[in-house]
């Protein structure tokens, strides 16, 4: 049920009270009318009883009058000597005062009942007695209503000597009216329903009398007083109700409506919670005033709570948008700001800078999370200090940071990026117990005159970042059109292929590049190079491994590669006894599943040479585990090679600490042997000599010419590989030494 408003309730109350007053008035009016009717009925009954009594009185009066007249001596005189009877009848009997003027006629009858003298006219008594007196009767003749009484007249008191009879005729109405002082009966409108020429006993005539009851003056006065009182009372009550309604409207309804409106306004979403006494209008009803004050107090507390909530919300918002570790904006803020900039809106002049801490996982694993966190904090602080005021620094996750430089041209972006790099390089990370410096890679993408969407800008920055991450790349890379080939790194198809290959090693297509034994220059084993063939398209390693590394999928991918090699061994693609070199990433060498799988392969292939090439050794964070695993592999019969020696991923420290059998000179170093200056050549020759002297077998990568082959053979390299010996997958024929 819909609740009613106080105004409607008040109106309903006033109307109900009015109806009640009118109803009660009507009820009392009906009650009084009913009581009045009862009284009137009672008065009519009293009137009839009164008339009946009057009739008895009339009859008795007639009897008394007739009796007195019959006993009058002059009556006897006339019956004896009727000579002067007319005189007696017409004057004497009236002059004597024995009869009243209401006696219309007097007559005497002899003993036989015959009238002494005939009468004529309306008032004539019958000439002959209708029956034997005494009797009294009611007679209606010619519209005249009269009573007639007939009595015997005796000469002696003992009523033994009958002289004759006496007849009297009365005016009925006059006699009736005289007979009684009527208190109830109103005989002014008396009607007699007796037909003409009829006669009856007087008492029975009551049934033919029609009359009203006299109006009761007390009752009329009471009714008038009641009506007046009721009218005044009703008016007083109605006026009181109107005043009450006005007072209720002024004191209750209006304040309640205002209060309700103010409260109702608070229901709207955009309603502001005001401060202070909200419901300012004082209410005249103490309970309502208490409600108003309670609401105001409640409002005050609600305001305080709201402020507190807003503050908390702001805090939560800030916390939600800030990275708890570094204090800079977090990934959520980055996404929201991106969303704020508009996904489809093309930017004007802007630059997106992505920062990634090099080898942070290795740092974290090596020095622990506490130091890792400190490194991240330091990096964030350095980057923040290097940015312009107003530039936002976002921590996208882990060791990745980003900033958007609005209204920045490429030059300004590079300057800022270099400043960031300088701040990082200037920071003393040794204070955290680290022995090597922390570096970052920076990818920059520019938007010129709004020619790029945000997503495109994001993609380009990613590509630039991956380019910067590549070995031997500068730490600051601005996106250029030539990086389009790297787009596979982030292409959805390549990523999908990597994940599918992890689940299904059959998608991995291995090609085998021969590794030649020197100085005889004959194939000793082959290195498995990984590709993925998805829907007929071949995805190359330069598109695979950045994804694997970026997605931290090294172990899972290496496991799938091991399965693929096992497959090739099984299906004969790798001939029996054909040695094979398998690349394991740094995370894989410390992964139990990978090591176990590798051990199982080595143990299953005891008749062939198995070389495990550990790439990106700089990323090995758990050196002891890695060393133990390497020892296990070596003990199982496998040879371990340190890949990319001389590049940023491998250094003498790892050579010194890791129990490897082979060292693979990075291609950059091989090229320096041919193209480098004298000093570089000397250094490389000395390093190669030192490694060989230390007992390691030394493998040269990227041998493309005979001169290069001769050179390394001259330097004592034990193995070589490269296009000079054939492209991967091609059969390699033994070559003659130089």
């Amino acid at each position, binding site marked *: 049920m819909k609740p009613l408003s106080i105004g409607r309730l008040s109106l309903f109350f006033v109307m109900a009270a009015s109806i009640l007053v009118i109803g009660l008035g009507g009820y009392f009016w009906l009650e009084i009318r009913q009581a009045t009717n009862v009284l009137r009925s009672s008065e009519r009954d009293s009137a009839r009883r009164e008339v009946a009594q009057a009739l008895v009185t009339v009859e008795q009066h007639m009897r008394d009058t007739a009796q007195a007249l019959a006993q009058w001596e002059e009556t006897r005189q006339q019956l004896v000597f009727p000579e002067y009877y007319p005189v007696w009848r017409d004057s*004497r009997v009236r002059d004597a005062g024995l009869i009243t003027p209401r006696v219309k006629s007097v007559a005497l009858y002899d003993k036989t009942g015959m009238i002494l003298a005939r009468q004529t006219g309306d008032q004539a008594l019958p000439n002959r007695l209708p029956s034997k007196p005494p009797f009294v009767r009611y007679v209606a003749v010619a519209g005249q209503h009269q009573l007639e009484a007939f009595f015997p007249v005796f000469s002696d008191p003992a009523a033994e000597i009958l002289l004759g009879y006496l007849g009297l005729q009365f005016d009925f109405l006059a006699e009736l009216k005289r007979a009684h002082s009527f208190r109830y009966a109103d005989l002014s409108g008396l009607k007699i329903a007796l037909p003409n020429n009829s006669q009856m006993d007087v008492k029975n005539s009551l049934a033919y009398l029609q009359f009203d009851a006299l109006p009761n003056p007390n009752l009329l006065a009471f009714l008038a007083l009641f009506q007046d009182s009721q009218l005044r009372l009703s008016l007083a009550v109605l006026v009181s109700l109107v005043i009450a309604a006005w007072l209720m409207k002024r004191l209750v309804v209006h304040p309640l409506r205002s209060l309700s409106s103010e409260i109702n306004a608070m229901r709207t979403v955009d309603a502001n919670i005001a401060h202070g006494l909200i419901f300012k209008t004082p209410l005249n009803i103490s309970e309502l005033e208490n409600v108003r004050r309670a609401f105001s107090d409640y409002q005050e507390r609600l305001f305080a709570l709201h402020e507190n909530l807003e503050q908390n919300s702001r805090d939560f918002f800030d916390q939600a948008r800030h990275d708890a570790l570094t204090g800079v904006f977090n990934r959520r803020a980055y996404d929201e700001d991106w969303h704020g900039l508009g996904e489809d809106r093309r930017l004007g002049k802007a630059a997106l800078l992505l920062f990634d801490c090099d080898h942070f996982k290795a740092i974290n694993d090596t020095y622990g999370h506490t130091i890792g966190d400190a490194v991240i904090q330091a990096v964030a602080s350095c980057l923040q200090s290097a940015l312009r005021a107003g530039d936002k620094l976002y921590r996208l996750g882990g060791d990745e940071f980003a900033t958007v430089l609005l209204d920045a041209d490429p030059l300004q972006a590079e300057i800022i990026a270099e400043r960031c790099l300088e701040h990082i390089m200037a920071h003393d990370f040794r204070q955290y117990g680290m022995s090597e410096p922390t570096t970052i890679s920076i990818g920059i993408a520019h938007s010129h005159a709004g020619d790029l969407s945000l997503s495109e800008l994001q993609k380009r920055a990613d590509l630039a970042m991956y380019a910067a991450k590549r070995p031997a790349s500068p730490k600051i890379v601005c996106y250029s059109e030539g990086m389009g080939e790297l787009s596979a790194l982030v292409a959805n198809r390549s990523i999908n292929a990597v994940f599918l290959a992890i689940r299904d090693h059959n998608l991995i297509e291995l090609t085998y590049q021969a590794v030649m034994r020197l100085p005889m220059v004959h194939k000793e084993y082959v290195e498995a190079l990984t590709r993925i063939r998805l829907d007929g398209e071949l995805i190359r390693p330069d598109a695979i491994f950045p994804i694997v590394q970026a997605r931290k999928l090294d172990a899972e991918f290496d496991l799938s590669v091991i399965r693929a090699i096992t497959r090739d061994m099984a299906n004969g693609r790798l001939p029996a006894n054909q040695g094979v070199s398998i690349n394991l990433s740094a995370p894989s060498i410390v992964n139990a599943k990978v090591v176990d799988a590798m051990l199982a392969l080595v143990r299953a292939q005891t008749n062939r040479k198995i070389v495990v090439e550990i790439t990106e050794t700089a990323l090995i964070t758990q050196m002891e585990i890695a060393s133990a695993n390497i020892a296990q592999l070596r003990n199982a019969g496998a040879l371990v090679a340190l890949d990319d020696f001389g590049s940023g991923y491998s250094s003498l420290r790892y050579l010194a600490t890791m129990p490897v059998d082979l060292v693979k000179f990075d291609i950059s170093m091989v090229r320096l042997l041919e193209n480098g200056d004298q000093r570089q050549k000397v250094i490389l020759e000395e390093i190669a000599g030192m490694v060989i002297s230390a007992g390691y077998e030394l493998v040269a990568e990227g041998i493309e010419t005979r001169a290069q082959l001769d050179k390394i053979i001259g330097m004592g390299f034990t193995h070589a590989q490269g296009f000079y010996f054939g492209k991967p997958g091609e059969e390699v024929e033994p070559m003659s030494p130089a």
Partner: protein
Amino acid sequence: MVHWIFLILVSLSVFSAPVLAEPVELVMPNKLTAKAEFHKGDPGKPTVLLMHGFLQTHEFPTIHRLAEGLASAGYSVLAPTLTLGVTHRKQSLACEAIHTHTIQDGAKELAVWLDWLKARKASAIVLVGHSFGSVETLAYLSAYREPLVRKLIGVSAVEGRLKVDGPRREKLIKEIRALIKAQNKSLITEQFSFCQKYRATPESMLSYLEWTPERIIAEARRLPMQTTFIMGSRDDRLGEHWIERLQQTKAKVRVIEGANHFMDGDFEFDLLDTVLLELKTL
């Protein structure tokens, strides 16, 4: 003093030993029944017939008290009521009534009553009339000769007229006689006696008017028996010098000083005493 003691004794005897009255009804010659009251007394004493005044009955107080007193004294007393044309009359007849009776009718009725007394062995009869009853007894005595009637006592006897007198009366009498002669029976209304409007037939009116004072005096002088008139000195219903005129007759006139026409009050005893004294003279 002795007189007063005597009266007291008589009164005591009256009230201590009331005499029972006997109602008597008697059919008159005109077929009307007349009523009377009879007190039987000592046979050796005369019988008293008390005649009431004009239009009265024997119940009139003066007559009634006198009858009681006389009966107590041992006298037989008959107090009749003239019918005046009304049978069984026992009430006074109004002046305005239609009077058809004549004074002679009354005399006839007195004669009947005297016959009734004689039938009861009355030895001597004394007629006592009060007021106009005295005239009525005179009318009887003038018309009848009854030897047993020994004495007439007229108490407050009137002259028969009061309002009509002198030439007017004579003129009225002539007119009535003319009416009677012409057999005109129209009722006549005149002042008569104490009546302001006395309505009567011509014969009735004339019978009473003919009893003039002079006729009364004359008749009184002619009475052959003892006649006594007992008058009140303060009777205002009498004409001038009426008592003196009565005294000029041979009748004895006793005047009770201070008594009025009705001899009421203390004078009833004087009246009774006087009547008794007169009765003892027989």
